[in-house]
């Protein structure tokens, strides 16, 4: 009665197949003797080669050789990887020696798609990249197109854009507070963060019609004017979130377990951060006051008052504190936007770029033609190339567009901050405990939609 012979054990019979199904080939991490010196150094997190501070790859751990360490795989569907991030780790017991992120599981070819969509449709594409801060994506894209077109955006549109992107920064950081809380075991923070974000999403829905992928900021202005009584809604959002940030302080900042898991963990220096091209809260946590809103102002950021929050130690706690305080700074900016919001058009009146109002189409032949041309062919953009960068909640979001004079971008490349910031993983994880890898992923705050695009 022995149906099951050793040869029918699945893993034995299909071993080669199992490896082939899960292997990412050369993208994976390999044993030390199979890895080149440069790559080994990179996986070890030895970023700086000057000043004798580079780590000797043969000297990572004198007591252990390859037989005693273990290469394990974390993800891609691990709950704390914020999506589909896969990290391969070389472990000595519970200590991380090397690490290497493997990405691409959410790659949908959005840059290729962007070449097939006209400039009018492009916003719907880019807004899906960083799905936690859609407004900043659209803003980076729209500003690049406007630079190519060489058109001016009305003042009110500028201020609406600024207010919406600050609201978006708040909602993005609130999701970060929520997921970071959950990664560290505070499920109540998860619920609070998402509860506050809901206020902002409700306002987005009232303004743009959608909650997440808004396509609200468009080349030439914004899609719609702010709804009646928007001041009251935004006041309520500001007051609520301002008060709640102090509740988060009480809940998390002073809490012993929370502090012990963040303080001094995964520290990084300014030189390392700059060498790795890190931007956003990661760079600011090392004490570099680099915030494009302040250092290379766009929109009307030079007319509002806010502080650039920087850290001192570059550790996890600094990154937490920076994001929490950036929510407060965003509240400050939004409050000034309410006061200083100018009157006027919410989009440029250039009929070649802006579709006519619906009512005009019934009475004006010209408006009908413009409407038809805009939505069938789209507008033509002069030949050229442009790189436009803004400060997204995660860092510098750049948009590089090459135009061949047609109605579709010839090439659209998005410099995604999360994609670049992920390069810090080997450095931040090295020498830490296995449990610290969770906090490292969390405080880098990658959005996988943006990483893989």
């Amino acid at each position, binding site marked *: 009665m022995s149906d099951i012979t050793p040869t029918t054990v699945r893993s034995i019979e299909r071993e080669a197949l199992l490896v082939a199904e899960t292997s*990412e*080939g050369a*993208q994976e991490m390999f044993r030390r003797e199979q890895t080149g010196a440069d790559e080994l150094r990179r996986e070890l997190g030895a970023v700086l080669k000057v000043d004798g501070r580079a780590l000797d790859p043969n000297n990572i751990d004198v007591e252990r050789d390859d037989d005693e360490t273990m290469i394990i795989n974390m993800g891609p569907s691990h709950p704390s990887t914020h999506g589909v991030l896969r990290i391969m780790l070389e472990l000595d017991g519970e200590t991380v020696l090397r690490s290497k992120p493997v990405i691409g599981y959410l*790659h949908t070819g959005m*840059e290729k798609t962007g070449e097939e969509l006209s400039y009018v449709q492009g916003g719907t594409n880019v807004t899906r990249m960083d799905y936690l801060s859609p407004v900043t994506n659209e803003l980076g894209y729209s500003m690049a197109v406007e*630079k190519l077109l060489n058109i001016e955006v009305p003042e009110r549109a500028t201020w609406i854009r600024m207010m919406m992107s600050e609201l978006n920064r708040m909602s993005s950081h609130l999701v970060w507070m929520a997921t970071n809380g959950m990664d560290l075991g505070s499920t109540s923070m998860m619920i609070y963060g998402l509860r506050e974000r809901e206020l902002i999403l409700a306002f987005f829905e009232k303004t743009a019609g959608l909650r997440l992928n808004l396509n609200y900021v468009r080349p030439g202005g914004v899609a719609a004017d702010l709804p009646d009584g928007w001041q009251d809604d935004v006041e309520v959002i500001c007051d609520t979130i301002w008060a709640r940030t102090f509740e988060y302080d009480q809940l998390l900042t002073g809490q012993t377990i929370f502090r012990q898991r963040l303080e001094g963990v995964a520290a990084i220096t300014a030189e390392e951060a700059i060498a790795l091209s890190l931007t956003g809260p990661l760079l600011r946590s090392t004490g570099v006051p680099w915030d494009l809103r302040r250092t290379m102002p766009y929109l009307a950021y030079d007319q509002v008052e806010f502080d650039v929050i920087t850290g001192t130690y570059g550790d996890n706690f600094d990154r937490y504190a920076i994001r929490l305080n950036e929510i407060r700074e965003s509240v400050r900016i939004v409050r000034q936007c309410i006061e200083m919001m100018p009157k006027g058009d919410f989009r440029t009146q250039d009929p070649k770029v802006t579709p006519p109002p619906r009512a005009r189409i019934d009475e004006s032949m010209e408006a009908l033609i413009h409407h038809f041309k805009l939505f069938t062919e789209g507008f033509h953009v002069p030949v050229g190339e442009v*790189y436009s960068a803004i400060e997204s909640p995660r860092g510098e979001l750049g948009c590089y567009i090459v135009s*061949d004079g047609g109605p579709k971008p010839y090439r659209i490349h998005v*410099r995604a901050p999360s994609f670049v910031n992920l390069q810090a993983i080997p450095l931040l994880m090295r020498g830490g405990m296995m449990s610290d890898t969770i906090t490292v992923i969390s405080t880098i705050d990658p959005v996988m939609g943006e990483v893989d695009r």
Partner: protein
Amino acid sequence: MDAGSADGRSIGNPQVSNVATQPALNAVEGYFPTREQYLDLINQLKAEGFEMAVDLCAVDYLSHPGRELPEGITPERFEVVVNLLSLSQRRRCRVRVQVPENDPVITSIFSAYVGVEAMEREAYDMFGVVFTDHPSLSRILMPEDWEGHPLRKDYGIGRVPVQFKEGPGPR
């Protein structure tokens, strides 16, 4: 390091054996080195204050050959575009290198800027431009056994056939 404060250094135009320059759009200075000059120019720009390589990407100019380039630069099919950023000077500059189709090989600038590792891998993955001296040049977004380089202009985008509910049967 306090990168926010200008330290008074002035950035002159790098004179690496006659690199072609041209003020690009929005008063961003543009450099057009040849492949041989590329790494030297990058090293010199880094020494002159551009601390960070913010972005590196490639462009396939297969169907748009008539673009504006300074005199003496032959347009080739591929172009590698590097955006550098100077935190201390609050300046940007752009380096554009022509890479021919029949020999899409270029030096990696990993030795100067560690942060371009992932971006060069992406450019290789999407365009098939090979970066020599890169620590581990493998695909990054596509699966390892993928054929072709998706962002090339001659790479088909494919299409999904429209399925009508009650379409006519095959004739």
